Each structure stands twice: as C-alpha cells, then as structure tokens.
C-alpha cells in the first residue's frame, strides 16, 4: 500500500508526520512511502533526505490524495483536505473528534476511515503509539526552556566570588506527562521544584522525578485516576483548598508551569489574577493549557503578556512545533507503530481489525459509520491503582507503649515457658535415675549453647554449616567404637558397619566443608 504524508497546512505548524527514519521502517512493513514536497523542510528534513531514504517526493497535496491509500499528517484536516478524501482511504492524524463534529461527519460522508492519534487508548500495549504523551513530553521540556529564556536569573543555586545566587523555585501544577517532563527538566537545571496534582497517587512519580509534592490536607481527596489516567473536575471545597495552597506559594516561587487539563472541558482556572499580582517582578508563568483557555487568568493564547507588576505570562500553544525536529521524530515513530499494528502480517496489506482494542479506540469513522466514542477498553487504564493510605507515624508515647507491651508479653511467654519446662524437669526427676539426670543437665546446656551459637551463623554459610554439623554428627562413631570390642559377633558386625559409615560421614563432611569454604573469597 502507499502511505502519503502531507505538508501541514495550518500556519506556523513545523512538524511533519513522516521522517526518513520512520519511512525506512514503514517500507519494511511492505508499504511504499510518498511525501509532499517541502513537507519536512521546517522540521529540518529536506526533500533530498527523503529521496535517499527511498521516499517518492510528490509535488502537490492533490497527488498524494490520489496516489496514497493511507494519508498521514499531524494536525486535523482542514475543509479542503477533507474534501479530497475518497472512499476507502485512511487518514491518520490528530483529530479531536469531540470538538470537531462537523469535520467528523464530513469524513464519514466521504467514506474515509479516520484514525485519530489523540484517541489511542491509554493502555500499556498502546504506549508506543501514544502521540499525546510524546507531544506532552516535549511541551513540558520546552516549557522549562521558554521559562528559562524569559527568566532573568540562574536556575541553579551557586556560590560565586561575585556573590551567592539562590536557586530558582519552580512550581509545576498538574503532573501528567508534560508536568513530569517539566519537573525532570527543571530539576536537572538545578531548580528547586514543587509540584501539585489533584491525584494524590502521582505523588510517588513526582518525588521520583526529584520534586516535592505539595500535599493537600483534604479528607476525601478524590481518585482522579478512575477516568483512565486523566484528571477529573474537582469539587468546589477541594478547589478552594487548592487555591489557598497556591496563594501561599505565589509569593515564594519564581516560575510557575501550569499543565492542568480535564479531557473534553475548558482548562480549569488555577492561577488567578491575585496570585500573579503576589508574584515577584520578573517571575514567569508558562501556561501549557493556553489552547484550552489557559490555567492562568492572564493567559492570552499564542502571546507573551507582561502583567502590571512585571510578571511574564507565556501562553504559546505550539510548544511541540517549536521543537519540530524532535517532535516530528517522535510523532513519526508513533505513526509508524500504528501502521505496524495495522499491518500484522508485514506484507504491505492493511488489516483494519476493529476487534483490536487499540485500533478500535482510535478509529473515529469507518465504512461510512461514525465509530466515536469507542466502547470502554477491555483492559483498564494504567493509573488505576488505588493510592496507598499514608501510614501514620506513631508518636513517641505510642511507640513506648508498644515497646512496653511487647516487652511484657515477651516476659510473660518466657516465664510461662520456664515454668512449664521446670515442672517437666521436676516430673522427670521423679522417675529418672540420678545418673540420667546428670547427663540430662549436660544435654540441656548443650542445646542452649547450640541455639546461642547457631543464631550467629552467617546466612551465606548455611550450606557449610550443614556440612560441618553433618560431619560432627558422625560423632555417632563413638557409640560404635564403644561397642565394637563386644563378645557378641552380631554386635561387633553392626558396630563395624556403623564405624564404616560414620567415618565416611566424618571425613566426607569435613573435607567438603573445607572445599566450600576455600571457595568463598572477598573481592
């Protein structure tokens, strides 16, 4: 089949859906690749590189639509592009079907199959084609870079001959993929990073990236992960608590990066005007939710605004496109993985398997039907694990009480054991002859010594311990030695056999222990 990549039509979009690298992989699946001339130029791939990778460079978009069975691109199609789709053609792109119903209907009417990269379900098998995550990762990284660009000081704290520089304090709101990427980037630049998320179970991920999790003391903190790994809207009380926490932070932090999005809704307003006013002049707010209205009151999409008190609010919506080479590489790989799943036999034939959870989830029109929204996936989302309840640190008094109780119960047990043991000894002493009791004392003391000594044996020497106790238990030979001089033939015979096997035991046991111990060596 022919796979054709279009040049992006929307203004300022620098990404491209096919890279020379992904083209090579797609060709291995048995497909043929086409690309519109100049499609990769803005991302740093010129036509010649594509030709070298075996891609046919075509002059117009029209030609791609005519030749290719599968059309791939980055952004959702515009009217003109949708008009060119034909029956049975497949389009793979970001589509946002929930917001683009008219476009969805248009594609359906054309009879085209549309696979929306933004609808890839969030299950582990589909991670390799999760373009939203790869783009969010880039956005998070780029957000920190933009912040650094607009921020007049170092990120990392330094003590120089010219004076001490405090580290920048960064607050990241929303610890999705973008938020985590921002945390990682900011910490590696040396900033002090704090992060907040409505889903308390991500605190572990936040801490693993090196940031401090701002924990809200709120009783029924909701379980945001129920909705398939994305955040859900929060209750008014929770929101109040949350804003209160942000207000406290506002005066302290230098850089705020907001990434809070709720699927299918406008972005929640979390960084209000008064918080911007409370920030120090020269501080920076990067709003990654600008496209959906912004988390900050002052955000204007695609613009850099400076507030009255000198706080810079950046509302760019094209962070991934600003790193077109990197984002094209990742997006093209996501597309390539999607094609791999669509071509199970690797024979260049597309098998659109609607029983497959991933393909079914991402397909929004198919065979003149609108197949959006998809049924819930059979496999649950990744983030569905319940957060562990925080264990309360016992207070010093509780600890003391617990220790005391443990000591008491231990004493009780030991005393009982001793009493029972003593009683048994007394009873035994009643019936047993004196000579037996003398031996018995030796026996009990030896058991005690044994217990004391063996507990100290290193775990790694348990096998040598067994071998050596084995050898020592060959002491049974003494019994046979004592009997072997007997006047009775049968006793002598049995004693002789016993001597033989006990000696095997002793010599074998000791030698093998020695062999083993000699092997243990220090590095």
């Amino acid at each position, binding site marked *: 089949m022919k796979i054709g990549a279009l040049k992006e039509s929307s203004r300022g979009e620098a990404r491209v859906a096919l890279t020379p690298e992904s083209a090579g992989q797609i060709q291995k699946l048995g497909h043929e690749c086409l690309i519109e001339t100049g499609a990769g130029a803005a991302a740093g791939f010129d036509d010649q590189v594509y030709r070298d990778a075996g891609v046919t460079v075509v002059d117009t978009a029209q030609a791609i639509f005519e030749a290719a069975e599968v059309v791939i691109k980055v952004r959702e199609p515009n009217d003109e592009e949708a008009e060119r789709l034909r029956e049975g053609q497949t389009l793979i792109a970001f589509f946002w079907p929930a917001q683009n119903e008219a476009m969805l209907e248009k594609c359906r009417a054309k009879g085209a199959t549309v696979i929306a990269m933004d609808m890839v379900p969030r299950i582990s098998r589909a991670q390799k084609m999760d373009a939203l995550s790869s783009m969010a990762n880039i956005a998070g990284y780029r957000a920190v870079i933009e912040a650094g660009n607009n921020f007049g000081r170092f990120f990392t704290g330094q003590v120089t001959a010219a004076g001490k520089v405090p580290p920048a304090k960064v607050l990241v709101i929303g610890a999705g993929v973008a938020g985590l990427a921002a945390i990682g980037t900011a910490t590696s630049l040396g900033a002090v990073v704090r992060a907040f998320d409505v889903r308390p179970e991500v605190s572990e991920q936040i801490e693993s990236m090196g940031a401090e999790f701002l924990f809200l003391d709120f009783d029924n903190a909701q379980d945001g992960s129920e909705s398939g790994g994305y955040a859900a809207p929060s209750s008014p009380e929770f929101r109040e608590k949350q804003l209160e926490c942000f207000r406290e932070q506002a005066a302290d932090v230098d850089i705020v990066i907001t990434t809070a999005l709720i699927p299918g809704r406008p972005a929640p307003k979390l960084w209000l005007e008064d918080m911007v006013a409370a920030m120090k002049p020269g501080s920076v707010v990067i709003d990654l939710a600008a496209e959906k209205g912004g988390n900050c009151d002052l955000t204007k999409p695609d613009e850099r605004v400076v507030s009255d008190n000198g706080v810079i609010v950046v509302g760019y919506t094209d962070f991934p496109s600003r790193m077109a080479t990197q984002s094209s590489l990742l997006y093209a790989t996501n597309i390539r993985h999607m094609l791999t799943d669509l071509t199970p036999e690797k024979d260049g034939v597309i098998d659109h398997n609607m029983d497959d959870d991933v393909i079914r989830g991402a397909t929004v029109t198919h065979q003149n039907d609108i197949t959006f929204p998809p049924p819930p996936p059979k496999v*649950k989302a990744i983030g569905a694990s319940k957060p562990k309840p925080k264990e309360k640190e016992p207070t010093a008094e509780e600890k003391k009480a617990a220790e005391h109780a443990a000591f008491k119960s231990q004493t009780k047990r030991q005393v009982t054991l001793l009493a029972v043991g003593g009683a048994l000894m007394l009873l035994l002493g009643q019936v*047993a002859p004196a*000579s*037996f009791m003398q*031996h018995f004392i030796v026996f009990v003391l*030896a*058991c005690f010594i*044994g217990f004391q*000594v*063996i*507990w100290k*044996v*290193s*775990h*790694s*020497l348990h*096998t*040598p*311990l*067994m*071998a*050596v*106790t*084995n*050898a*020592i*238990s*060959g*002491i*049974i030979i*003494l*019994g046979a*030695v*004592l*009997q*072997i*001089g*007997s*006047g*009775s033939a049968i006793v002598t015979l*049995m*004693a002789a056999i*016993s*001597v033989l096997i*006990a*000696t*095997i*035991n*002793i*010599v*074998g*046991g*000791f*030698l*093998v*222990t020695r062999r*083993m111990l000699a*092997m*243990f*060596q220090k590095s």
Partner: protein
Amino acid sequence: MLSQGFVSAAAIAASVLFILSLGGLSNQEKAKRAVWYGIVGMAVAVLFTAFGPGIGGYGWLIPMIAIGAAIGAYLARKVEMTEMPQLVAALHSFVGLAAVFVAWSADLERRRVLAARAADGVMQEFSAFAALVATKAPDELAFLQVEVVLGIFIGAVTFTGSVIAFGKLAGKVDGKPRQLPGGHLLNAGAAVLSLLLAILYLNGAGFWTLLVLAGLAFFIGYHLIMGIGGADMPVVVSMLNSYSGWAAAAIGFTLSNDLLIVTGALVGSSGAILSYIMCKAMNRNFVNVILGGFGGSTGPAAEIEGEQVAIDAGGVASALNDADSVIIVPGYGMAVAQAQTAVSDLVRKLRAAGKDVRFAIHPVAGRLPGHMNVLLAEAKVPYDIVLEMDEINDDFASTDVVIVIGSNDIVNPAAQEDPNSPIAGMPVLKVWEAKQVFISKRGQGTGYSGIENPLFYKENSRMFYGDARESLNTLLPLVD
C-alpha cells in the same frame, strides 16, 4: 591404654572445639579456621575414645576407619557444588542408620548382661559396652530401654527420610509430593503402632519389637518425605540434619557418653534453627511444610492484567550497558542450568565496566539453606557482593536493572499485594520496584507453588526465555 581421666579430658576438649567450630561460621574468614577446630575436635574424640579403657576389636576398627575415610575423601573431592544437597542428604542417612545399629547393639548387650545375671548371678567377664551395662542398676537399665527406643525411632526416620530426600534432590525419585492412599493417617497409624510396640518392649517383650519398631519408623521416614515437594527440601534437609543430631544425643544417653550428648544436642539445635529460618522465610509453619502442600487460599486470586513481553539478548545487553546498578536474583533454575559460571563471567564484565553489581539471595532460594551462596562462591563471585534479602530489599527501588535467573515464587509480588494468594505474607524480594526487570526462564510455567506470578506481567518486566546458561552465554559478547 589411656585412663578414663584422659578420655574425659579429651571429651571436654572435643566439645569445646565443636562449639568453636560452629561459632566460627559467623563469617567467611573465621570459618576457614573453624573447620579445622571441628576436624581436630573429631580426631581427639575418636582417638581418645578408641584407645580408652575397655575398648577392643581393633582388628575391625582400624580397617573400617581406613576404608570409610577413603570413601569419604573420594566423595568429597568428586562432588559437584550443585550436588551438595544430595550429598548432605546422603550423609544424614548414614548417621541415621548408624544410630539404629548402635541402639540395636545396645539392647543386645543389655540382654546378654541380664541373661548372665539370671544365670545364678555369676558375673562373667564382659568386654566393651557390655561391661558398662553390667554395672548399671535395674532402674537405670529400664531407662536405658527408653533411650534405645528413642534412638532407634529417630535414627530410622532419619535414615529412610534422608534416602528419599537424596533421591528427590538427585532426581532419582520424582520431586512431586506423592503419598500412598490414606495419606497422613498412615503415618499416624504407624506412629501409634510404634508407641504400642515400645510399651510392649518396655514390659519385657523380645528383641523382635525393636526390629518391627525400626521397620515402622523406616516407613514413616519414607512416607513423610515422599509427601513433600522439591522446593520444600531446604526445610526437609535441615530437619533431617536436626534429627541426626537428636539421634546421636539419644545414643549418647544410651551409652552414658556426654560427648555424644553434647555434640548431638549441638547438631540437633543447629538443624532446628535452620528449619525455623527456612519456614519463616516462606511464612509457613513447620507442621504445614512437613505435612506438605500450601495453605488454602481464602478467596479467588486477584486477576492479572497485561501480558508477558519477551525480549532478546540484544535488548537485555543494551539495558545492561546503560545501567549503573544491577542486582541479580538467582534461584534453583540457575543451579539446574549450571549457569553460575556464566553468571560470574557476566558479573566480572559488568564490574569491569564500573557498574555496581550485587546479588540478592532469598533464604529459600535453591534446595539447601545457603545453596546459592555456595554455587556463586564456586564460580568465584566475591562473597561481599552477595547479600541477604533483608540487606538488599530496600535497594531495589534505586536499581536500574534486575536480572532474575531461575527463580519464581521468591520474587512474586502477589505474596505482598494479594491477600488471597496461597503465598500471601511470604517475604519476597521486591524486584518489581527496580526500573527494569529481566526474567531468565525456560518457559511460561509457574513456580513450585503452582501460582501465576504477576511480576511477569508488570510493565517494567521483560521475559528472557531460554535455558539460563545458553541465554547468558549469548548475552555475554553483547555486553561491553
């Protein structure tokens, strides 16, 4: 001929040496000296006893010792380190059998003395042990009978139990738990019969009672161990180790020999502690292990989501090349595949590349307590990078790569996460906390407990299928 005073002094010396010998095993360096304490102690004990008063039969004694020593030395030299569990089990059976023989002999001597006393009280000259018996009062002789019964019973159970354990470990007997119809009722029946016989014997029945008693005990030993599966062998072998000690102690009472008593008690308590440690490591109690089978689950096991993802040597190698810290978790599978040398080569290469490589050993990994440590030592892995579960379990979270070689149940997260799992509560190595886990495994089978391992389905787990040694050998050249 040495006097009794000499013999007693020697016994004290030997006891002290044995205690030092066991105590010295607290660390690897001291252990090399400790084994010499044991050897010297044993030599002192045997020499002074053999040349003590009232010992004869040197015509038998010396050749037997010579032959036995030759066989023992040969065995010790020839045995492979992977065969250690079998060897230990086989040696236990010898102690058990010797105990049975010695106890039988003791009773035969007692009968001779009694017969002589009955024959108008003319005391003939007795030699060896019979001479000692002749000095005993009637109540002491009655107690001697109790000791004989104990010696025979414990010795006989140890003997057949060890033989079966040997067979299972050597693969000569099927490792699966197997019992005759009737199960543990048969064992209980045999035990009750033994008790009846013992009472008969104490009331003056003939020597045949002791023979039948030994037969019944032989059966119990056989049937009990047949019913226990391969992976529980660490407990079984420690238990038999303990029994062989108690048998020796019982014989010591019979023969009024303190050295035997002390040594037997030392060995007995040592084995008991080892069994305890093993049981604790499996979160099961001793009775549960001995009676076989895992405890019943309290509900359906949690369903496992996800899929097992396989990986090839190239993938493992690139992950290892990128990693800074690596932990290797070996299990019985490594012993079966004889992969310890390959593991050692891999470790050497990784360490030469400046990576932090360590081993995590679960207490019940392998078929013998400390089995893995010995195998790794044989492959020249330095012991200071081989760590116990408690020492290393918190470090998994900060580790880049974990390689699990031939272990299953000891790395099963279900033990901690699923309260309905049959192994719930068993302490396990938390390998899943590492960034990446590679599991070298022959196929998709389950472990000894027969339950699925959710670890294999985790997102950071990759299955590295194939024979452990071959897999590692293909991996080696790819690591730089």
